[in-house]
């Protein structure tokens, strides 16, 4: 079990270090590691993890807690969460301390610029990949399409979209 905990921690440390540009971008990374590499969760469970992460308050990163729990109980949950938060925690503290130098470092700025673009590409990939599993019938496709329109075009608050989808599921589900 200690071995698993170490692996869990390592994976989430990695995830926590490379997710530039927003909360959602951890999703492709998590899928890559947790579903494909280590097979700790099935694809369906992974999608649920992300979903639950969305409907809870706070950042999506909290999906790590769910995954940690599934892998190794409460201890796993704590370790996964702490590991995924630690890298950005340290980086923010260091950057705040040396904020001037940080913001004027051109190399760093350019690196991050490239990195962020890459991350966007991967988010598309995650969307496609998850879409393959989650869009199984007309109903789900319609929900996804409606979500995209509401969120991208009309900029609704995601919480309403999720509530709406949940209601649809409640009424038409089962």
């Amino acid at each position, binding site marked *: 079990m200690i071995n698993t905990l170490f692996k869990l921690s390592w994976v989430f440390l990695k995830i926590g270090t490379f997710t530039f*540009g927003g909360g959602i971008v951890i999703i492709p990374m998590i899928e890559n590691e947790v579903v494909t590499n280590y097979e700790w969760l099935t694809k369906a469970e992974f999608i649920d993890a992300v979903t639950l992460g969305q409907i809870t308050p706070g950042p999506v990163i909290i999906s790590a807690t769910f995954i940690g729990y599934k892998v190794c109980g409460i201890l796993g949950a704590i370790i996964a969460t702490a590991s995924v938060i630690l890298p950005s925690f340290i980086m923010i503290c260091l950057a705040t301390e040396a904020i001037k130098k940080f913001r004027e470092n051109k190399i760093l700025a350019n690196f991050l610029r490239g990195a962020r673009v890459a991350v966007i590409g991967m988010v598309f990939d995650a969307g496609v990949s998850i879409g393959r599993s989650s869009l199984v019938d007309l109903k789900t496709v319609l929900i996804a399409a409606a979500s995209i329109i509401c969120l991208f075009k009309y900029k609704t*608050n995601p919480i309403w979209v999720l509530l709406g989808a949940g209601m649809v599921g409640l009424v038409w589900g089962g």
Partner: protein
Amino acid sequence: MEKQKLKEQAERLYLQGLHAFAGSANPADTESMKLAAGLWQQALELYRKAGDKDRAKELKKSLAVLYKKEYLKSDKSKEKQGVILGKFKDWFMFLKIGCFGFGGPMAVFTLLEDELVREKKILTNKDFLEGAVLGDVLPGPVTMDIVTYTGYKLKKWRGALISTVVFILPSFVLMIILAMLYDKYSLTPKIAGILQCLGAAVTGLILSVALKLTKTEMKDYRELCILIWAFASSLIFKLDIVLIVGLCGLVGIVIYHDEPKKL
């Protein structure tokens, strides 16, 4: 000669302080105590300047008596009280925000701005923006980064730790509960149906975020190339994420080399 004058002045101050101290027999008379302490403090410095180490030592002892017997609460202990008070009042705000950030980063971001800049005035607008830039540029969720940033600004590493932990705690606890319930109930048809629809919505969410980011981040064809390459590498070649991000970052260093843009 100078030193002699300083000594005399110090002596005067000491006597004045003594007068204030002794003159009020009531230890609760903080005003006199403060006065005495202030005078003795000045006398102490003068003695030191005059080089009279013995007198300075004696005076230090007298001052210690004032503080020890709690005739006067020292500034230091007041600071400690401030820390404890500050702890509950300020950090509680993070807990509150952590509980109500439904609906994604934008909601939390707005809450943070309201609380930190407008209500509690912990950060100036400029500071807040700075935190947002840091959070955006560095890995990790923007909202969490702002929380850490604020905590750090308040009380360095300790503050950052407290603010971050307090912020994430409600979500953490809720998630654990949900995870426990998940094992039990996820397979029941009703719940499964709801989860399936939510999953579809989340798919839409992910794609919409990707689209939004494309709109805001893509500035020219170079970036489009990187994007397509990253997308393909991830989907088709299944390269490791670290590899993709790292390579694109290095590419970024090279191709943006001439541009003056800063963070």
